[in-house]
């Protein structure tokens, strides 16, 4: 009995409760935006590190981690059922931002592994722009 209770504890954080109201959905949207912002800002910072400042493996691993983090947050959010029309609107605003983030991080990761510095710098700009959009979203709904 106690064993099962312990197991439940470990599983609990993995459970995502469905959003019951528009407010709840908005909170989750903001949480997602913040999580993805963290990944995007990490990516942006990493992409701007010069070759003297960081080893290639470090930048690659950092970007992979960031990409994985953003992808996971995005997947969880998109799997949620929007409870009403207002939430549909929130989803419609956030989803493209999530896609852009995912995309930019992937491209940065690929560029880093390849050692393609020009592409990496391009990604850095892209990531900064996406970060700014995410910040505006958070400011509006947070």
């Amino acid at each position, binding site marked *: 009995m106690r064993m099962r209770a312990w197991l439940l504890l470990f599983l*609990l954080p993995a459970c995502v409760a469905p959003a019951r109201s528009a407010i709840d959905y908005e909170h989750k949207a903001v949480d997602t935006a913040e999580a993805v912002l*963290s990944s995007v*800002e*990490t990516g942006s*910072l*990493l992409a701007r590190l010069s070759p003297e*400042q*960081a080893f290639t493996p470090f930048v690659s691993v*950092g970007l992979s981690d960031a990409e994985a983090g953003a992808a996971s947050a995005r997947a969880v959010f998109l799997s949620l059922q929007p409870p009403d029309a207002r939430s549909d609107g929130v989803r419609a605003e956030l989803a493209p931002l999530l896609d852009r983030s995912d995309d930019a991080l992937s491209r940065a990761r690929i560029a880093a592994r390849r050692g393609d510095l020009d592409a990496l710098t391009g990604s850095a700009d892209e990531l900064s722009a996406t970060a700014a959009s995410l910040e505006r979203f958070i400011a509006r709904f947070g």
Partner: protein
Amino acid sequence: MKKFFEIFLGILTAFGGFVDIGDLVANAETGARFGMSLAWVVVIGVIGIVLFAEMSGRVAAISGRPVFDVIRERLGARVALADLVASFLINFLTLAAEIGGLALVLQLATDLNYLLWVPLAAVAVWIVIWKLSFSLMEKIFGITGLLLVVTAVALWRLDPDWGRLLSDAAHPGPPATEKWPTYLFFAVALLGAAMTPYEVFFFSSGAVEEHWTRRDLMVNRANVYLGFPLGGLLSLAIMAGAAVVLRPRGISADHLSQMALPVAVGLGKVGLAILYVGMFAAIFSAALETALSAGYTVAQYLGWQWGKYVRPREASRFHLVVLVSIVASLGLVLTTIDPIKLTEYSIVLSAAALPLTYFPILVVANDPQYVDEYVNSRPTNVVGFAYLVLLLVVSIATIPLMIWTRVGA
């Protein structure tokens, strides 16, 4: 002169060996989310471990009896068995977290998936335990861990607003963006990371391994009173680095790569290289300690021969337990559970389990049958009792906090 050198080495070993994957994760995550507003917990945690380690070192030096021996003797076979099971399981989680941490450091340095490194890390830990003498093992990895001082150097290079950092630290309480339950949850995590039980099992068993007597009490006190607080300063440097580099950008420290960013930004490649070696050594040292503690706890409860001060064949059951623990931890990490998440669980549960180990030590450090005339002084007892109350409160609050905050989400 020789004594002075011995004390000096001991302090450096305690200093460099203080930080492990738990401290790294707890301090970086906290700095990124809460700035320096939880720095006071590190101070409390360091004072606690200093108190606790000094007492258990003293008991072991004078009576020759290490912690789990004392726990069984004081609490009786039945209660001590429950204590053993809880301590062993949490220790096991911590060992798995440390092995995972080693693999993450190697991944960061090489861009090769951490899962590939896990078996190598586990084997390396076991080989060092098998082959190296206790003293050499402790000193090599402890002192190399000193390289983590690079985090403090990087912080200095980043030229932060020191006034702001200090004022943040002086004003406990969650920042506007966070809530009290999460704040308290991270406080518990930081406390558990600073006051890990394995540190005490290892420290007191180590006193017996190195055949300490009352003449070594000075060494014990110096190591503990100077080495551990210096290690605590490193923890704070990690917290501050995250507060300065990660927090303003809204970056949370979920991955080891993010935790290394302050050093990369502040010191570049050289800093990173030093950080890798320092992290590896400090975490390796912790992995050695937790693996040995798995053996110490079981052997000391059952009365088996234990220790590296005898040949492995003279302590076969002990070495078997250590080996099985390493293999099982390896298995746990290979289930692809996130090593950072594993670390978070291990430090929080460590905090919850602290009274189990702490209480008997506090009692026995007052008992002339164990420590002759070296019983606790009045001030030590006052602080000791205050900590007992604190740890009981923390212990009771941990599981509810875990559930309420969904493990700090």
